[in-house]
């Protein structure tokens, strides 16, 4: 059972899953870091990205356009959500923010269930990425290689937005001290709106990228949300590099453990999270001042 090709291919699976978790988690963590809101509807954003992409694909039969369509759809949903609901909660206690985004997540899931039904929908991988690739002794599904590539590009884009643009500078300053940014005369609320949209779009993008691997169901986001939490706790809340590191660690844990016994993979993830909490409560790359 334990052969080298098997092990290597599980490592690759872990990398693909880890990259996916990293992208979703970085969306969650950037929103939290900037706005101070933990978005419990983030799993629903992931799910809606998948469905948005599915609908686009139905009309255009182009996977590339589906990627764009799914992402834009969630970006718009994110911005509207922030404008209509979330912005009224910045001054309310964190518990209220958790409750309202939790309720929102349920509303989104049930809306999609109403529109598309509970049965799972399949998106087939694009022709240019279907089939298998031979890499020496290893045979690996081509699309999963593409997943890694596409997500690496997406993370790079997110990195460029965060670290190489004016908006990104404000966001990072906001993560350090949003009150101070406000005092500098920058309209933080405009930035908040954009950040919420971008963070949600990151999850939505991951949703459509993952659609050919994982069938679409209305509650597909629930499990991902929990895994995202573990990623963020391991990496450190509010830290973009932490989300990426935590994502890769979580992905590898899940896939390597499942090679031995799939039923223990989630448990193993939890064990690692507990260890991190006991040894380094702020997370691997988190700042100690954030609690």
């Amino acid at each position, binding site marked *: 059972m334990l052969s080298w090709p098997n092990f290597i291919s599980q490592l690759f699976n872990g990398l693909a899953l880890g990259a996916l978790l990293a992208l979703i988690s970085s969306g969650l963590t950037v929103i*939290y870091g900037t706005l101070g809101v*933990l978005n419990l509807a983030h799993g629903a954003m992931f799910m809606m990205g998948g469905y948005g992409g599915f609908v686009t694909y139905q009309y255009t039969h182009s996977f590339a356009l589906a990627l764009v369509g799914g992402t834009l759809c969630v970006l718009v949903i994110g911005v509207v959500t922030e404008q209509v*609901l979330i912005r*009224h909660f910045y001054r309310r206690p*964190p*518990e*209220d923010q*958790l*409750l*309202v985004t*939790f*309720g*929102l997540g*349920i*509303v989104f899931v*049930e*809306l999609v*269930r*109403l529109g598309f039904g*509970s049965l799972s929908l399949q998106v087939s991988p694009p022709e240019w990425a279907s089939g298998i690739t031979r890499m020496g002794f290893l045979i690996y599904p081509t699309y999963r290689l593409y997943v890694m590539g596409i997500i690496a590009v997406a993370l790079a884009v997110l990195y460029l937005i965060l670290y190489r643009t004016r908006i990104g500078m404000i966001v990072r300053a906001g993560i350090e001290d949003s009150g101070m940014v406000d005092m500098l005369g920058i309209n933080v609320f405009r930035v908040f709106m954009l950040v919420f949209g971008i963070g949600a779009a990151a999850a939505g993008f991951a949703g459509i990228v993952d659609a050919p691997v994982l069938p679409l169901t209305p509650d597909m986001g*629930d*499990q991902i*949300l*929990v895994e995202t*939490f*573990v990623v*963020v*706790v391991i990496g450190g*809340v509010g830290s973009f590099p932490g989300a990426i590191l935590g994502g890769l660690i979580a992905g590898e844990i899940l896939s390597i453990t499942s090679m031995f016994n799939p*039923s*223990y993979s*989630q*448990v193993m*993830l*939890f064990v690692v*999270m*507990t260890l991190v*909490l*006991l040894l380094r*409560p702020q997370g691997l790359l988190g700042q100690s001042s954030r*609690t």
Partner: protein
Amino acid sequence: MRNRDTMTVWRAFLPDLLTACGLIAAPFILPSLGFAADTVNRILVLGLFGIGFDILFGFTGLLSFGQSAFFGTGGFVAAYLTINGIIPNVMLALVIGTIVGAATGVLVGLIALRRTGIYFAMITVAIAETFFFVENSPLAAYTGGENGLSGVPSPVFNLGFVTWRVGTGYSMYTFLAICFLVGMIIARRIIHSPVGAIFMAIRDNPIRARAVGHAVERYKLLAFTIAAAYAGLAGGLLGVLQGYMPPDAFTFDTSGELIMQTMIGGTGFLFGPLAGAAVWLYLRDFLQSGLGLGAAWKLVLGIIFVLLICFLRRGVIGGVIDLVGLARPRRSSAPTDEEPLPADAPPKKRPAPPPGPVLEVRGLSRRFGGLVANNDIDFTVEAGELRGVIGPNGAGKSTFFKMITCEMAPTAGTIRFQGRDITGWDVTDVCQIGLTKSYQVNQLFTKLTVRQNLAISALAAARGRFRLDVLRRATHVPGVTAQIAHTLALIGLTGRADVAVSDLAYGEKRRVEIGLALASEPTLLLLDEPLAGMSPQERAETVQLLRRIRVGRTLIVVEHDMDAIFGLAERITVLCEGRVLADGTPLEIQASKAVQDAYLGGEVVE
């Protein structure tokens, strides 16, 4: 006198009596409203589950998304024990399930409570999901995996003259209603105990609860354990009610619906989850069959939930109470006439402080990276002294105070209080041996009344860091009532004792801030800018207050109001750029060239 005592006892038990009446009346009223017996029974189980959650979230302020872990654990333990004949007595199995649920709560709490706020919420979600996975596969041999456990027996009671075999319908209702009533009575005792008061203090301001001398972490763990015990019992009862323990007891949906039902009913009333579960199940049936919405019922309930969070945060019960309050305005509590301070409140008799300096600080330093906030400070205060500490902004006064009260660890140096080395101690322990501080920015328990605020401090002085007196009434702790009355008189708020702190005028809040420190009966009291932000009138009154509270105490006061501090203090220490610039009587300080230069922006003379 005897008559009045009977009245108080009567009033204390009135809610329990009303609950019992309500539970007896329910089977006669609810069917005509369209509730089936099975639905009513389910509401009771969910209501009991929610009592624990309300203690955890509504009273202690800890929002857990992982209560399903304990609900499932208690349920499956009880079900497994009875089905396999290990414990044939159903009641005993339920008790064991409750205990195992509580024990699980202790273990999970030890991990999850290491963090607060959103971290805590996320960790509880992750842990509960892990429980689901463990139940579903590694433990499937015991839990039945996806099939659950069927054949859970109903309890049988041998009452001597007759044997009561709990059946379905309203026979089951009688059993569940008794369980609910007992659970509610215990919960009400907990809430009215000193522990309950401290839970609410932790919800409102954990930092201050810690600073006045309560072991906050242990009380949080206690609240978490209590909630887990209720969840465990409710889980066991669900199995009994259905004759079957479903695996979805462990799912995130269980935790989620608990939260939604509690929020719909309202938090902080204990009855909220019961009301919420009733609304939830009634609407579910009504939307599903009545309106024929089918699966969309959850969408409607989700929207209702979001709207409630936005506009009616206190839930249905809170809304009704607010409406009644509007219709029947309470006695005027306008903060117009701040009562003048009484001329002289008698100081409490306290033992004479031991001879020698009360506080002795040697070589105290604190660095923040490259910044040296405090640099090699030596500082001694004699018993009974009133010491002023002044210095320009950024001189390091607040850092100095934080280190003395052990809110912040020094980089170097030692602090001795009454001869004891307290360097590196915890702020809670330091308060317990008689050293505390009033804060520059008010740190109050804003949702509680003035009396309740002072009670939190007085309870810490009377009970110590941690005690498990969950069944004693907070007002019955010896000495607390007297201490509160004394402190109220001292800070001149006797007439405003039952007003919520959030409704007080600023000057009054400031006095509560000092009162919180006073009520913990400190030997050494540090006051960080007690006059900050006050009007001239309020300043004069507070100076009078300081004169009165110094009797029998040692005070150190940081203050920017020079007139006030030079009039009050016997000695003054001047801090500048993290060092002691000068130390002497007010006259010496006023004459000092170095001090004048520091304040007027001249060169600092070493």
